[in-house]
């Protein structure tokens, strides 16, 4: 081993025991320049914590006192994959499907090629540094060369493990398209998934995400997406949270006339925390972004929405962007934090945003009860209808399953 653990440790300011464990693991991995750069980036912040502006509501350092296996591991179900291809990431590495549709090629590689600026996101950098193993593979390149109709599933699930780190790079060739469905089911004390998506001219990716971890688990899903000319990126997430969970998405409109939709619904029960954070840079003219995030939180649950649109001068001209976040606080003692930000320097743009949070409408509840629908059922119906709008763009093959999952959650908690 060329570097000593103590040298690595010195790069961190006040590393906690979880960070010391991560440093020790990194030291065991084969040396690699790319991994080293990612590790250096991670060392700048360590596990992100509340004194960092972008993490003030979602503190991984506090949640992860140490890296240990989940005691009450999540038993969540993956989105239904039928007979479609499934890529599985577990604590034992990646398992590849044998029924890959034409137009998709998989290249297991350690580490995966870096496409975006994952290093800018602390947990992206950490995952890039730590996804890897001796004698196995945690990283994969997915190359899409054609319009692929059949959905491709990724399932990340631990089995009472300490960690499950995985990294995927998706390269979408010109005119190619992918229906990507991800189930992030926790099951490990600390799960972290990094996906970098590079879309070339006219490419399309529909990405559908289910996040559902356990009450003593930390979970991060980091996406870094670059859009080529006239490409389309349609992301829909349904998050149930974990002890702490964050779905962070960074999108760059790299070439003109690209289109991005970033929608999400979050449902948080007592003791669960779901964070939806996104950053969209309009780095090319005439690009469109649509964002709808809806959440419903019960007593003791926490929802976080942070959205930012950055529209630079000149190159951001003719941007058309809209950001909406609406949250329902279903009970006293529910918590929602929201920070919508528009940072606009170009002068010929259409940018809008809306942000509301409140309780269910008393008039609607009474109207439904007057018709004979019991209060708890009325609440569940209204909440389901409320969040369903954010799930409309999910992959057709799983949209019903997502609505069912939301329905079951609301029926259970009433």
């Amino acid at each position, binding site marked *: 081993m060329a570097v000593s653990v103590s040298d690595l440790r010195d790069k961190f300011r006040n590393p906690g025991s979880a960070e010391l464990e991560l440093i020790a693991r990194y030291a065991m991995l084969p040396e690699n320049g790319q991994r080293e750069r990612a590790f250096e980036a991670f060392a700048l912040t360590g596990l992100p914590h509340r004194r960092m502006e972008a993490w003030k509501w979602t503190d991984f350092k506090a949640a992860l006192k140490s890296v240990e296996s989940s005691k009450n591991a999540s038993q969540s179900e993956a989105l239904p994959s039928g007979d479609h291809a499934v890529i599985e990431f577990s604590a034992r590495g990646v398992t590849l499907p044998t029924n890959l549709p034409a137009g998709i090629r998989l290249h297991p590689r350690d580490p995966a090629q870096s496409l975006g600026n994952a290093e800018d996101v602390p947990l992206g950098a950490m995952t890039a540094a730590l996804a890897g193993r001796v004698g196995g593979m945690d990283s994969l390149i997915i190359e899409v060369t054609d319009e692929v109709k059949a959905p491709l599933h990724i399932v990340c699930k631990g089995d009472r493990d300490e960690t499950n780190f995985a990294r995927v790079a998706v390269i979408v060739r010109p005119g190619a398209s992918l229906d990507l469905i991800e189930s992030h089911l926790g099951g490990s004390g600390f799960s972290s998934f990094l996906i970098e998506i590079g879309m070339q001219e006219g490419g399309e990716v529909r990405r559908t995400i289910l996040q559902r971890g356990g009450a003593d688990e930390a979970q991060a899903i980091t996406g870094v997406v670059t859009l080529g000319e006239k490409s389309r990126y349609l992301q829909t997430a349904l998050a149930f949270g974990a002890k702490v969970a964050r779905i962070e998405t960074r999108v760059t409109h790299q070439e003109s006339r690209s289109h991005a939709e970033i929608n999400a619904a979050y449902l948080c029960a007592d003791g669960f925390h779901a964070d939806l954070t996104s950053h969209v840079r309009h780095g090319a003219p005439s690009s469109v972004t649509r964002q709808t995030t809806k959440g419903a939180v019960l007593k003791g649950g926490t929802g976080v929405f942070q959205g930012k649109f950055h529209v630079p001068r000149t190159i951001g001209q003719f941007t058309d962007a809209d950001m909406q976040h609406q949250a329902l606080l279903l009970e006293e003692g529910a918590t929602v934090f929201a920070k919508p930000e528009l940072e606009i320097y170009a002068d010929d743009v259409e940018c809008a945003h809306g942000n509301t949070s409140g309780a269910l*409408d*008393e*008039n*609607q509840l*009474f*109207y*439904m*009860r*007057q*018709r*004979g*629908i*019991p*209060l708890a*059922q009325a609440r569940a*119906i*209204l909440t*389901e*209808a*409320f969040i*369903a*709008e954010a799930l409309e763009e999910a992959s057709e093959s799983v949209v019903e399953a997502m609505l069912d999952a939301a329905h079951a959650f609301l029926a259970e908690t009433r």
Partner: protein
Amino acid sequence: MASMLNLHNLTAQVGEGDEAKTIINGLSLEVPAGEVHAIMGPNGAGKSTLSYVLTGRPGYEVLGGSAALDGEDILEMDPEERAAKGLFLSFQYPVEIPGVPVMTFVRTAMNAQRKARGEDEISAPDFIKMSRDIAGKLNLTPDMLKRPLNVGFSGGEKKRLEIYQMMMLEPRFAILDETDSGLDIDALRTVAEGVNALRSPERGMLVITHYQRLLDYIKPDKVHVLANGKIIKTGGPDLAHRLEAEGYDGVMGEAA
């Protein structure tokens, strides 16, 4: 024999603390089964408040008196229990329920009521047939019934949807709160035909209205004048015409 709806010396307030205001003030009223009674009264008399007190809207507190449906005290029941017992309110301002199609909503309500009464759910074919028959009578198209309830409907359409729900749910006792407001003559006639179709010896109705016009189409057995939270005068259908001619001031002056 006791009447179907029996209100005795009912007193109720709306609001809380310093904001509380007594709106219903010693109101007594009886509606026997099979009868349709009209309640008329000036603005602020307590007409809508009465409908909310009877259906159990949160924020309306009963201070005294009693209200019974079929001899059973309803004041301690939740709104949904009263609905399952057969109490229906056609709202003056129907509420939008986004994301829930009309038919889904009504079927959910119907089955919730049946469950509360210990009955089986309605079968899908029976429900669809019943819905088609009733929608046809009210000039509601199948397409309208697939749209979210009251979202994007005109005022007249919303009132017809209230009557559609009433006909589907077949209540024991129906309160129609200003069902005529916002209706043109054709819609008024359609709505009145729907209401008249529901008249039966097994059912009672309370029709709350500002104007006598609706009562030309729905002939009441009795007309009550509500003012300052109590019934100040009761008469036959001709009382509605007198109110129209003389105004509330005239009739109220006489009663005082």
